[in-house]
C-alpha cells in the first residue's frame, strides 16, 4: 500500500478549507440580511404596540389630568420615542445588509449609499442619548422635535438607498446584456464568410436595432439615477412623487432590456439555422 503524497494532501486540504470558508461567508451574508429583516419586523411590532399604549395613556391624561395618568403618559412617551429610534435603526441596518449583498454595485455608488446609511445610524445613536436623558414631557417634546426636524433628510437618504439597490440590480442585468450583445457581434464578425450576403445584412441590421434598444434602456437608467440625487432637497410629499417617477423609469428600463433580450434570442436563432433558400 502506497502512502499518500503529503504535498498533494496539503494542497487538497487547503482547497477544501478555502471552499468551506467562502461557502460559510456567502451563507453568512445571506443569513445577515434575513436576520436583519426578522429583527426589523420584531422592532416594528414592538413600535406598533408601544404606539398604541402611548395613544391610550395620552388620551387618559388629557381626559383625567391626574398625576398618575401624567406619569403613565410620560413613561409611555419615553417608551415610544425610544422604540421609534430602535425601529429606524433596525431598518437602516437592513438596508446596510442589502447593500452588502449587492455584488454588482460600483464601489463609488455603494460607498455613497453606505455612507448615507451610516450617517443616519450615527444621528439615531446621538438621538437615543437625548431620549435616555428625558426628564419631563417638555424634554420629550424637544427630543421628538429633534428627530422630526431631521426626518426629511432621513427619509430622503432611505429613498435614495432603496433606489440605489434597485438601480444596482438593473445595472447588473444591463451589464450581462452588454456581454451577450458583444459576444454575438464577435460571432457574426468571426463567421462572416459562413453567412450569405442577405443573411449577413439581416444580422447586421438586427444588431443595430438591439443596440438602439439598449441605448433606450440606458437612458431610463440614467434618468432614474439623476432623479434619485434630487431627493434630499425635497419635502416628504415631493419625495414620494419623485420616488414614484424613479420606479417608473426603472420599470421602463427593465422593459427595454426585456425587449432587447427577446431580440437577442431571435438573433441567436437566425444564426443557428439556414432556411431552405440557404439564407
Amino acid at each position, binding site marked *: 500500500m502506497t502512502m499518500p503524497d503529503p504535498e498533494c494532501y496539503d494542497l487538497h486540504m487547503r482547497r477544501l478549507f478555502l471552499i468551506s470558508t467562502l461557502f460559510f461567508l456567502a451563507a453568512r451574508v445571506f443569513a445577515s440580511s434575513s436576520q436583519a429583516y426578522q429583527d426589523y419586523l420584531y422592532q*416594528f411590532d414592538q*413600535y406598533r404596540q408601544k*404606539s398604541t399604549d*402611548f395613544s391610550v395613556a*395620552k388620551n387618559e*391624561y*388629557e381626559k383625567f389630568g391626574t398625576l398618575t395618568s401624567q406619569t403613565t*403618559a410620560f413613561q409611555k*412617551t419615553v417608551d*415610544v*420615542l425610544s422604540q*421609534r429610534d430602535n*425601529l*429606524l435603526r433596525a431598518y437602516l441596518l437592513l*438596508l446596510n445588509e*442589502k447593500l452588502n449583498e449587492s455584488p454588482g454595485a460600483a464601489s463609488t455608488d455603494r460607498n455613497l449609499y453606505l455612507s448615507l446609511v451610516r450617517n443616519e445610524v450615527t444621528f439615531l445613536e446621538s438621538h437615543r442619548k437625548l431620549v435616555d436623558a428625558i426628564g419631563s*414631557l417638555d424634554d*420629550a*417634546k424637544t427630543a*421628538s*422635535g429633534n*428627530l*422630526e426636524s431631521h*426626518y426629511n433628510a432621513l*427619509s430622503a437618504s432611505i*429613498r435614495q438607498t*432603496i433606489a440605489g*439597490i*434597485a438601480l444596482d*440590480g*438593473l445595472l447588473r*442585468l444591463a451589464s*450581462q*446584456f452588454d*456581454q*451577450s450583445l458583444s*459576444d*454575438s457581434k*464577435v*460571432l457574426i464578425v*468571426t*463567421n462572416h464568410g*459562413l*453567412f450569405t450576403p442577405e443573411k449577413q445584412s439581416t444580422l447586421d441590421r438586427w444588431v443595430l436595432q438591439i443596440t438602439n434598444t439598449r441605448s433606450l434602456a440606458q437612458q431610463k437608467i440614467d434618468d432614474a439615477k439623476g432623479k434619485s440625487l434630487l431627493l434630499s432637497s425635497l419635502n416628504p410629499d415631493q419625495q414620494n412623487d419623485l420616488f414614484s417617477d424613479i*420606479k417608473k423609469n426603472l*420599470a421602463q428600463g427593465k422593459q427595454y*432590456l*426585456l425587449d432587447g*433580450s*427577446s431580440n*437577442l*434570442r431571435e438573433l*441567436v436563432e437566425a*444564426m*443557428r*439555422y*439556414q*432556411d*431552405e433558400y*440557404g439564407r
Partner: protein
Amino acid sequence: MADSFIFTPRESPQPRVESRHQQTVSIVVAIVTIMLLGGLSFILYSRFTKQLQPVVTAPIPLPTIIAPSPVRQIPAVATQSAFLRLDSSVASLTGAISAYSVEDPSLSPPVLEVPLPIPR
C-alpha cells in the same frame, strides 16, 4: 210461380281427395305468403311512421398529400462552443430580466407618526 221460390239444393261437388304432398306444399306456400305479406307490411309501416332522420354522409377522405417538411440546415457556426455559450447566456438573461422586480417589498420603509402628538 210458387215453384220459383222453392229452393232446390244444388248438388254438392264430389269431395276431392288431396295427396299428402300437395297438402304440405299448400301449407308452405301459405306460410311463405303470410310471412311475405307481414314483412312487407312491417316495412311499409316503419317507413311511413318513423321520423325522417338526417342523412349523415360519411366524409369523403381527401387524398393525403405528404408534403416534405422544410429541411433546415445547421450552419457550422451553430456547432461552435462560443455560439453554445451565447445561446445559454441569452436564455438565462431573459429569465433574469423577467424575474427582476423594481420594488423589493421587504425594503418598504416604516410608516411613522411624525410629529408625535406629545401631551403637554
